[in-house]
């Protein structure tokens, strides 16, 4: 196990003096390929960072709608623009790819070159190019993690999964009546990676390390929240059906059986900001922050999870609406933009 490929060591993340750590999950920028992105995007990221005081910003993917820009110049300017809010504020950040992203269109290294970017490609043994874990240490000079933030590449589609493993058709029987799509999903090999590494960390540190998970495509279990809003104590908005995968890697069961995961956040669905609890784990979607794709100014924002050493399995979790961020209305409704 090469931990340098599995956990970034570029910067040390640590609990603050109050024993807390704030993680902001955002996603779905969907920049166009042949023209520049909406100028409000970096402003929106900055407003959320300022309002939440995030200690880490995790981008859950779909950076470019068509996977790649029409020129290297446009790509580099785009990356600089979306990196700027975190870099200028000194906020560490990282990402996972979404189903619209291509490795060749936006290599991890391009983002990871920024001083505050912790993104990793992940272990060579895993499929994809963005499965890794970010440790949050007990204090800046501690080498003991207080929390782990588990991040998963959720790939691009069921047919990609089949092709990578040489799996013959039919493999898509799971297309049923409640909103499955073929956007991808976490593979079983990645669920197994979490299981093994989480157990190895427990062995190394003599206790389970509590954590949260993030990925672009939601798990099948995410769809249980809006299907059962009362019993899952659902909050937030559901404006489209949860775009869950056609397959189930067992990652939710792995998290449940390990007993150290308190929340699983996904992107992908642009106008959903719901959160709810299933079997003790909060499942949420963070809505799109992008302006170059369908979205909603009513919902646009990100999920803020505040990890607390005093109560590690019960973090505070809230969808932060961009419209509630100070100064945001000044640019959200800037003249010349057709708001959703």
């Amino acid at each position, binding site marked *: 196990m090469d931990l340098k490929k599995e956990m970034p060591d570029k910067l040390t993340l640590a609990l603050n003096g109050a024993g807390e750590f704030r993680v902001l999950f955002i996603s779905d920028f969907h920049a166009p390929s042949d023209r520049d992105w909406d100028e409000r995007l970096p402003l929106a990221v900055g407003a959320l960072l300022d309002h939440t005081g995030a200690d880490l910003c995790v981008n859950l993917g779909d950076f470019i709608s068509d996977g790649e820009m029409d020129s290297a110049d446009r790509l580099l300017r785009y990356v600089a623009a979306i990196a700027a809010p975190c870099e200028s504020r000194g906020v560490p950040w990282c990402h996972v790819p979404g189903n619209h992203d291509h490795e060749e269109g936006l290599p991890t290294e391009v983002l990871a070159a920024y001083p505050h970017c912790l993104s990793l490609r992940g272990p060579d043994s895993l499929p994809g190019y963005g499965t890794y874990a970010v440790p949050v240490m007990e204090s800046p000079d501690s080498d003991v993690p207080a929390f782990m933030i588990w991040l998963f590449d959720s790939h691009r589609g069921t047919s990609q999964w089949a092709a990578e493993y040489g*799996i013959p058709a039919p493999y898509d029987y799971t297309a049923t009546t409640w909103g499955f799509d073929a956007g991808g999903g976490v593979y079983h090999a990645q669920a197994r990676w979490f299981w093994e590494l989480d157990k190895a960390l427990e062995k190394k540190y003599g206790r389970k390390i509590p954590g949260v998970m993030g990925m672009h495509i939601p798990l099948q279990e995410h769809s249980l929240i809006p299907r059962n809003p009362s019993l899952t104590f659902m909050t937030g908005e559901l404006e489209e059906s949860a775009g869950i995968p056609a397959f189930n890697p*067992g990652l939710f069961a792995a998290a449940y059986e390990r007993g150290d995961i308190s929340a699983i956040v996904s992107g992908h669905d642009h106008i959903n900001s719901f959160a709810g609890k299933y*079997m003790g784990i909060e499942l949420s979607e963070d809505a799109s922050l992008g302006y170059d794709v369908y979205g909603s100014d009513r919902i646009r924002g990100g999920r803020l999870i505040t990890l607390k050493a005093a109560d590690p399995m019960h973090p505070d979790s809230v969808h932060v609406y961009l419209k509630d961020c100070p100064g945001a209305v000044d640019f959200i409704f800037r003249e010349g933009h057709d708001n959703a």
Partner: protein
Amino acid sequence: MPELHWKNSDFRILPLHTVRLDEESAARKRDRLSSLIQAGEPDLILLGGDTFLSPVPEEEARRLLSDFLAPAVDSGLPIAFTFGEGERKCGLSDEALWEIFTSVPGCLLLDRAEGTDGFTDGTLPVFREEQGTPSLILRLFDTHTETTSYEREYGSPGRSRLPYPLYTPHYMDGVRFNQTAWFDKDQERIAERYGRTIPELFFFHTPTPEHAQLIHSQDRGGFDGVIREERKCQTVNGGIAMAAAESRTVLSIICGHEEKNDYFAEWAGMKLGVEPAFDHGAWIVSVTPAPSVQITRL
């Protein structure tokens, strides 16, 4: 380690699900087993869970099982078994039942898994001729009872029972993730030991959600069988079907539990099947040298 020998062109397994032995039906079920053995000419009898369901005293369970399996014992057939939820409702401990099952002549001892939640998780290698490498691995899993027991063991009691679940409203337990992780590691260990992957067949009682999802596609090519009742699969997907698909070593996953449903179909390079209860049907699962799996209704 127990050994099964592949003597004929195909290796033929007679899986028996939901036999539900009791005094009243014992003689009839023994006669039916005798007929199935004659018709199916199996190389192995595999009890796939719910062999017992109603409360039964230990000595009666021993006698009922011995009488039922007499046709198999008389034919010199090896016998394997795994537990379903019924074995946890008959009033006997797992250990007592294990002793009762393994006391039957010809009953094979599993190479049992270590560190999993399943009492009857284990493997049975099948050897052809005198080769030292198995040609086939039969992997059995324990699917426990209902999600209430899963939640009791892992926390959040009662929270799995949502009125609008993902798959079915029956809240069944099944192959849990830690059992899937055992398969992940064990098939790698087997490949390392023998220098190549070995084809596998899975048998367990409660179907996976992927089995249940086949029902949505009855009109597709490759679906064979009938759906006569509501599906009753595992509630919290432990990932075993996707793990099996990614391993590319598993030929088939055969389950039971559903009373009258009787179907199988191809999914991700495997044959997923739900065999009906003993009183409603029985299959011969044949593994060809290719290897491939053929299912024949008796």
